């Protein structure tokens, strides 16, 4: 199937560093990816791998200092939005208008002392230029669109009067109301129960169908990726180490880290008796990365050759399957057998 959807967001060689007393910490190191219109992609990785900082950089929400975007380009609808000043009108229009962001803990993204209706209509007034009354009506419509029962009454509620799943729906409603073309969902369901998680994710997926919204989800839950994403980027220590279609990554992972990650997830459906194959050691500290492959200390395939420098992403299969590993050729040969 050829995919001729237009590219909505393209990030090229993005680099973000934090300048601390201990020196420069490269939280995002040469990361590139793209999202097409109406596509759901996932960025996967463990805590501290730079997956959230990447998204914050795209939105220019990095706290400066100590953080700084040191290089790269971010094209949104063809325009390089990194060129905009982070306080400029253009950037403000993109935040919330073009790209909306949903965070892990909805209680901290909503203001506890304002009614849901005020917060919702304020955003709509900003981005759509409506007056208060019209914005309120739009807000009711948006709440209904995300499946909140009795939306008029809910507009009068404060965030604490809602459950976690409801609050997350309110944030999605804000994105819907402003007609955002891309929703960046940063661990949207980590704080929620599994049945609520399924409800919220199904809602996000329905937005793709209905409005052609693109969704970029940042998560550590590989199960969610399997169910909802089309393409996946796996990050480790500030770099993308493998990327490809959902099928390629989950069934034919080739990078040792991706393989290890998949093996260490407890499964619902496979043989129960065997032990989990854990990855040894700890995720590295970003301030103490070696000059060679960051996964080297934990990698079962590591050898002296791996110390020659940082491996680059190279194409290893059709459908844009890329991996960054020095021993990828051997791994591919073994996989063929």
């Amino acid at each position: 199937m050829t995919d001729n959807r237009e590219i909505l967001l393209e990030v090229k060689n993005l680099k973000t560093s934090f300048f601390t007393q201990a020196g420069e910490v490269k939280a995002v190191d040469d990361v590139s990816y793209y999202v097409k219109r109406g596509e759901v992609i996932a960025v996967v990785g463990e805590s501290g791998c730079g997956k959230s900082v990447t998204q914050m950089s795209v939105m220019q929400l990095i706290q400066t200092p100590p953080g700084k975007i040191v290089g790269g380009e971010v094209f949104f609808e063809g325009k390089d939005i990194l060129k905009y000043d982070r306080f400029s009108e253009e950037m403000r229009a993109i935040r919330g208008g073009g790209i909306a962001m949903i965070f892990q803990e909805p209680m901290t993204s909503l203001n506890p002392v304002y009614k849901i209706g005020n917060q919702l209509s304020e955003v709509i007034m900003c981005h759509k230029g409506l007056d208060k009354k019209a914005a309120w009506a739009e807000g009711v419509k948006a709440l209904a669109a995300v499946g909140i029962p009795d939306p008029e009454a809910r507009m009068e509620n404060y965030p604490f009067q809602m459950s976690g799943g409801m609050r997350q729906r309110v944030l999605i409603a804000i994105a819907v109301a402003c007609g955002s073309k891309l929703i960046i969902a940063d661990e949207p369901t980590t704080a929620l129960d599994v049945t609520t998680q399924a409800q919220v994710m199904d809602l996000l997926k329905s937005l793709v169908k209905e409005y052609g919204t693109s969704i970029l989800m940042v998560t550590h839950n590989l199960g969610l990726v399997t169910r909802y994403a089309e393409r996946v980027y796996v990050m480790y220590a500030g770099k993308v180490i493998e990327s490809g279609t959902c099928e390629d990554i989950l069934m034919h992972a080739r990078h040792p880290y991706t393989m290890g990650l998949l093996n260490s997830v407890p499964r619902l459906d496979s043989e129960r008796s065997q032990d989990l194959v854990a990855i040894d050691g700890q995720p590295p500290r970003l301030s103490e990365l070696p000059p060679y492959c960051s996964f080297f200390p934990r990698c079962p395939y590591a050898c002296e050759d791996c110390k020659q420098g940082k491996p680059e992403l190279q194409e290893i299969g059709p459908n844009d399957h890329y991996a960054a590993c020095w021993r990828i050729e051997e791994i591919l040969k073994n996989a063929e057998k």
Partner: protein
Amino acid sequence: MPKNEKDLILKVTDLKMHFPIRKGLLAKTVGHVKAVDGVSFEIERGKTFGLVGESGCGKTTVGKCVLRIYNPTGGEIVYNGKDIANYSASEMSPIRRDIQMIFQDPYSSLDPRQSLKSILKEAIVCDMKPHGATEIEKRISELMISVGLDPIMMDRFPHELSGGQRQRLGIARALACNPDLIICDEPVSALDVSIQAQVINLLKNLQKQLGLSYLFIAHDLAVVRNIADNIAVMYLGHIVETMDSDEIYAHSIHPYTKALLSAVPITDYYEEQKRQRLPLEGEVPSPIHAPSGCPFHPRCPYATDKCKEKMPDLTERMPNHFVACHNV
């Protein structure tokens, strides 16, 4: 094998924990939160019993009742043949050494001002027996090695450890008094995937070496299925289904268990595409106004009038497989 021949370490019968809601100047009791309402289960020696459910279903309260952190409103807790549900504080204290607990967030359950050494020492000397300084030191090293921590780190403080190491320390502290039963309350849910697998494997190995029994409380079905021998699924203070953990994926019967399973995506891409979804509408009702009859009936696709009136009993539908549902 008939029931009474099993070597049971813990048998809980009809456990109830109702928290009173007090209001007004005189703190009049105006209602009850029925956090746990008639829960029965048993744990065999050397085995793991998993308790799964969503937040607010009462699974942690069950764990805390077993340790008598809460005084249960009703029911029996038979530990090694003795009913400890009404023991006084002084009668409980030797038993608290045999039943230990591991918590979800190891950071808030460790004193930030105590070094690792002093945290472990406190647990070792709590048996009131005389201990020599070298003996304690030796035991601390032993404990740290058994959970995969380097004894060099003995003088460090909890903030210097990573999440996984902190959880290992929590496990070492639980092992310090040579317990028989460990209550693990969400021990891996705060950890990264790769570290989670390490801790699960550690718990499994310790069980083999030391013959421990676990009451394993978690919300993640896949984790529980991996570590537990038997699983009970809880909903609003009731156990709705118990079974061998091999059964849960393919042979669960209760509509809530099925819905819960279908909500958890699996990582096998081809299998996931084929799976049938059973979406669950609405949210878990508040335990203050728990629905009459079967607690699941307002969300259940198969609910009938009978479900609204009468709470179904747990009945054995298959060997070792108990279900509480009128419409099986």
